């Protein structure tokens, strides 16, 4: 606004331009605002927005009390695959908290910001909390969706994000494929099932949160196939009376991973803070925050306290059914692999 009136009030000659340039340079000089004593950047994925908004404050307060050092944590959120790409291209995160270990593997391999054995550095394979894939339907379950087989009925529209860019989507895809194998199906039957499922998907959003919004705010589709924590959060944010959570007979154990990006942290002189930031996730206090935001905690005591939030689902792991992320990725998500073979945009 100030800018507009500025152009407008001056008579049209080039003194205007030099004056504007002067102002602009002055403004830019002010722009890089004074950083706090220590600043961390957490490159995260879509579904953790509320979790880390909460957690960052608690950690900063705890760190100040413990060490007398002030630390501020900035957040960046997008689809997990997009975030991995951005970090590889130079997004300067001190820590990465992504939806799946494969995305952090990609950072380790391509950008060499951390060693490839990063998963062994923190407990529980560097996954401090877990989640799974469940269904969210409209109140009263008008389409009568109860288990995986209902998702491939011709009258059901499923909303799920794009496995090429989203972590939630990869877990959802693998859950759909894996449950066929787990109930005794062959790989061919699994492929056939997944093809039918994605035929029912009218739109693939690039991130998990985009898909949730498509379902809850724009009211597209009959079933949201996504993170348990996303579904529970959406149900709470937008009213329990609008949605029902449907728990399928079996699903995948999703392990979102966290890691310090060593090279970046060393460059910023924040290695110690970054490490403490992730370790604090494993403490009862950190676990409690995770559970409050509908992530399944690892800590048994905290888990017991929040047991009513989390349905008892038969969970299978990616190592168990797919032989780990590397194999799953090569077989399903790289160009020309299973997902490209089965997916044709419907209608």
């Amino acid at each position, binding site marked *: 606004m100030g800018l507009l009136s500025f152009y407008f009030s001056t008579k*049209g000659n080039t003194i205007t331009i030099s004056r504007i340039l002067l102002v602009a340079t002055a403004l*830019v000089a002010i722009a890089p605002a004074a950083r706090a004593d220590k600043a961390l950047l957490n490159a995260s994925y879509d579904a953790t927005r509320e979790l880390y908004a909460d957690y960052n404050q608690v950690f900063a307060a705890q760190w100040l009390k413990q060490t007398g050092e002030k630390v501020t944590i900035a957040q960046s959120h997008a689809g997990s695959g997009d975030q991995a790409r951005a970090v590889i291209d130079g997004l300067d995160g001190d820590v990465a908290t992504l939806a799946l270990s494969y995305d952090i593997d990609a950072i380790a391999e391509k950008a060499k910001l951390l060693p490839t054995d990063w998963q062994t550095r923190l407990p529980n394979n560097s996954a401090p909390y877990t989640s799974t894939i469940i269904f969210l339907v409209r109140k009263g379950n008008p389409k009568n969706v109860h288990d995986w087989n209902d998702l491939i009925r011709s009258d059901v529209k499923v909303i799920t994000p794009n496995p090429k860019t989203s972590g939630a989507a990869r877990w959802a895809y693998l859950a759909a494929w894996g449950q066929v194998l787990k109930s005794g199906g062959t790989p061919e039957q699994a492929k056939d099932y997944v093809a039918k499922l994605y035929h029912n998907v009218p739109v693939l959003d690039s991130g998990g949160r985009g898909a949730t919004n498509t379902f809850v705010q724009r009211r597209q589709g009959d079933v949201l196939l996504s993170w348990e924590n996303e579904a529970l959060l959406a149900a709470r944010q937008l009213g329990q009376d609008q949605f029902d959570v449907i728990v399928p007979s079996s699903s995948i154990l999703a392990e979102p991973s966290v890691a310090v990006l060593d090279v970046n942290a060393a460059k910023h002189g924040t290695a110690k803070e970054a490490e403490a930031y992730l370790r604090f996730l494993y403490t009862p206090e950190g676990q409690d925050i995770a559970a409050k935001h509908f992530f399944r905690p690892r800590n048994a005591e905290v888990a017991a306290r929040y047991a009513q939030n989390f349905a008892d689902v038969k969970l299978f792991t990616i190592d168990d059914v797919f032989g780990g992320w590397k194999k799953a990725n090569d077989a399903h998500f790289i160009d020309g692999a299973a997902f490209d073979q089965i997916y044709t945009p419907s209608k």
Partner: protein
Amino acid sequence: MSNHRRPGENRIVRFFLIAAAVVLLGAMLVAPLVLLLAEAFGKGVAAYFDSFSKPDTVSAIIQTLLIAAVVVPVNTVFGLAAAWCIAKFNFPGKTLLVSIIDLPISVSPVVAGLVFVLIFGSRGWLGPFFAAHGIKVIFAFPGMVIATLFVTIAFVARQLIPLMQQQGRDEEEAAMVLGAGGFRTFWYVTLPNIRWALVYGVLLCNARAMGEFGAVSVVSGHIRGQTMTMPLQVLALYQDYDSVGAFAVASLLAFLAVVTLVVRRVLEWRFRAELGYAGSL
């Protein structure tokens, strides 16, 4: 008045055409604006103004203004220089230059953003050089400026070129004959002739610089409170289930656009002769 009937004089045809136009205008323009304001004020006036006190939103507004403060002057200078060259001189490669200026308008903004990631990314051509000197380009303020510069580069030049071509170079030649140098001629002869078309181009450039989403989204890194612009913040807040916040920021953007349009209209009306056909858009 002639006696024979012209197409469109049939009352039924006329009624349906007007009704169609009104419905279309209502559905495409009025309804979204009304909805936007309804959502923004959905939880009351206090909640609306409260959304502008959140640090992340304030930061996004400041970033947007800063980007415009850099991009608009640079593109104004570039636009002037390019239009001056193209309209007043003949040189080999002129047609090529005109096409290149138009390129950013025809390229998808997302592609433009990706190109800058390829150039300035840490594995790109120039990325390692800047990183070695401790300069962050991509996923920081400079990258967002570069991306916005690119998508708005043609806006000033495009307004000036037709007008300057139409005006010809007689006045400049007269000034030269009377002994004025190149710079003096530009300053006292050319610039006064085009000043309102220039302001008009600057307004369009500014509107686009503030509203750009695609290219900036690719190079921003989406760091809350640091590299978000207003359009990015609108989407982020909407996805945070903060629809009041999202639509409040959106309403500010819409307000800025409306102000730009009003200023543009006023200029067009007051200086229609001077604007020539550049103003007939």
